[in-house]
């Protein structure tokens, strides 16, 4: 049985149709990478999975139940930026989820429960390699460290689904490689289901177990908003057999450079 099911999702903003006929079944533990041209609705699709936005028609089910219409701890998220809290240090950012859990009114815990929250935050800091920067504020971290913090923070509530919207888009190539490795490691450890939007087609092929390409299949040159994008390619990726999909990868990269 599929874990995440999208049925006939369509999204329109006023006259403009963004997405149409998006249907999808994703198995538990899959790493789904999503690529497509700018403005093709891939981030919109991610926001729908997150509950930040509602589809104009169609619906999403998670584990057989209709999805909550607002974000909740079942689904973690990492954005390209602004995902961490600028007024909290690294340690405080990582303690926050436990403090919220432990205190409905103040959102702060004290004494033994605070020590417990700190221990858990400390463990996450080790995992994401930020233990040396515990007392720094996000503005004092490099881009890569900020994203590591964002990923670590998103993992604390043990979400079943992790949504990533171009999480490494603003990072330099070296840092990006390290971050990809960290993400894969965490994915294998937690067994969560990952949806990741990226501009980088190579990244999509390297990380994913399944690749979705969003594009418009129909075009009306007189009225470009008439048709929305949908899933045009849905490729299972087998990392041992990357050669099999190499031709498609090359073609996609080619079409991306053509458009740019």
């Amino acid at each position, binding site marked *: 049985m599929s874990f995440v099911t999208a049925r006939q999702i369509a999204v329109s903003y006023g006259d403009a149709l963004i997405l149409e006929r998006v249907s999808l079944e994703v198995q538990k533990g899959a790493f789904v990478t999503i690529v497509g041209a700018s403005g093709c609705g891939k981030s919109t699709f991610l926001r729908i999975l997150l509950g930040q936005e509602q589809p104009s028609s169609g619906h999403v089910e998670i584990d057989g139940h209709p999805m909550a219409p607002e974000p909740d701890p079942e689904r973690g998220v990492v954005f390209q930026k602004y995902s961490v809290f*600028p007024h909290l240090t690294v340690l405080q950012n990582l303690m926050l989820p436990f403090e919220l859990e432990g205190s409905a*009114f103040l959102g702060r815990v004290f004494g033994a429960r605070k020590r417990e929250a700190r221990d858990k935050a400390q463990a996450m800091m080790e995992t994401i390699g930020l233990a040396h920067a515990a007392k720094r504020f996000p503005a004092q971290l490099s881009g890569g460290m900020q994203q590591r913090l964002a990923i670590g923070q998103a993992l604390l509530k043990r979400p079943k689904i992790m949504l990533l919207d171009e999480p490494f888009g603003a990072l330099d190539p070296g840092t990006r490689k390290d971050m990809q490795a960290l993400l894969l490691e965490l994915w294998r450890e937690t067994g969560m289901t990952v949806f990741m939007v990226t501009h980088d087609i190579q990244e999509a092929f390297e990380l994913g177990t399944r690749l979705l390409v969003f594009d418009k299949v129909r075009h009306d040159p007189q009225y470009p908003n008439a048709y929305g994008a949908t899933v045009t390619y849905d490729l299972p990726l087998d990392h041992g057999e990357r050669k099999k999909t190499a031709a498609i990868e090359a073609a996609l990269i080619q079409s991306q450079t053509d458009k740019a």
Partner: protein
Amino acid sequence: MRLINRKPTRPARVALGALPFFLAILAYAIGSAIRRAENPADKLLPSFEAIAAAFSNMAFVADRRTGDYLLWVDTFASLERLAIGMAIAAFLALVLGLLIGVLPIGRALFSPFVSAFSLIPPITVLPILFIVLGLGEAAKIGLVVVGTAPLMIRALGQAILDIPREQIVKAETLGASTWQMTMRVILPQLWPHLIRAVRLGLVPAWIFLISAEAIASTEGLGYRIFLVRRYLAMDVIIPYVLWITLLAYAIDRALALLSKRLFGWAHLAGESL
């Protein structure tokens, strides 16, 4: 090198900053000297000695009628009104700013009213305040509140709306309720904006305070300068104006410093005035 890239060294910066002050004082000294050459008893541009004498008279000599040291009585009365008025305005700004900024329902309910209210010229409300609240302290404090609260409410509401949506969504995925989000994500980020709003609000606050004191009061900095105006007592008015300016400057700097001390994270990037 282009002018836009030429930065003054530190001594040069201090000298450049001091230059306009020096020129203003020099211009006054020359004007004063010319007028006093014609008429040694000139009242319009008194000499620095006369100003200093009048000021020390206000500050350090007890008033013959009341036995009060007028400068300090005036200063205390004005600052008390200003502090109470700004405290009320800041409280209103925080509560209404949060309702407008956090809750779409609160925004729909209060935002049009606050926007409309902020367009009322506050000074036109003064007669109403005098009639309703009487000529006592309440009306003067009320004018400070009416003159500053609307713009402070709007500034804080906007500051909340400017918090990236990503942070709010992130907080939701970490299990935060609306109340918890307000307490742990929004309010802590709002404090530096509240200080900034108070700093900006103090500019109109002084105007309305002095205006209200000029019209109905028995002590206060504004009362004093409008009282002695009748005797053309420029030797009192000029130091009082400088004293008010100094107070306003000191309060503004103190608040800026407070913000940097308490909310260092908010001052990590970029320059701030």
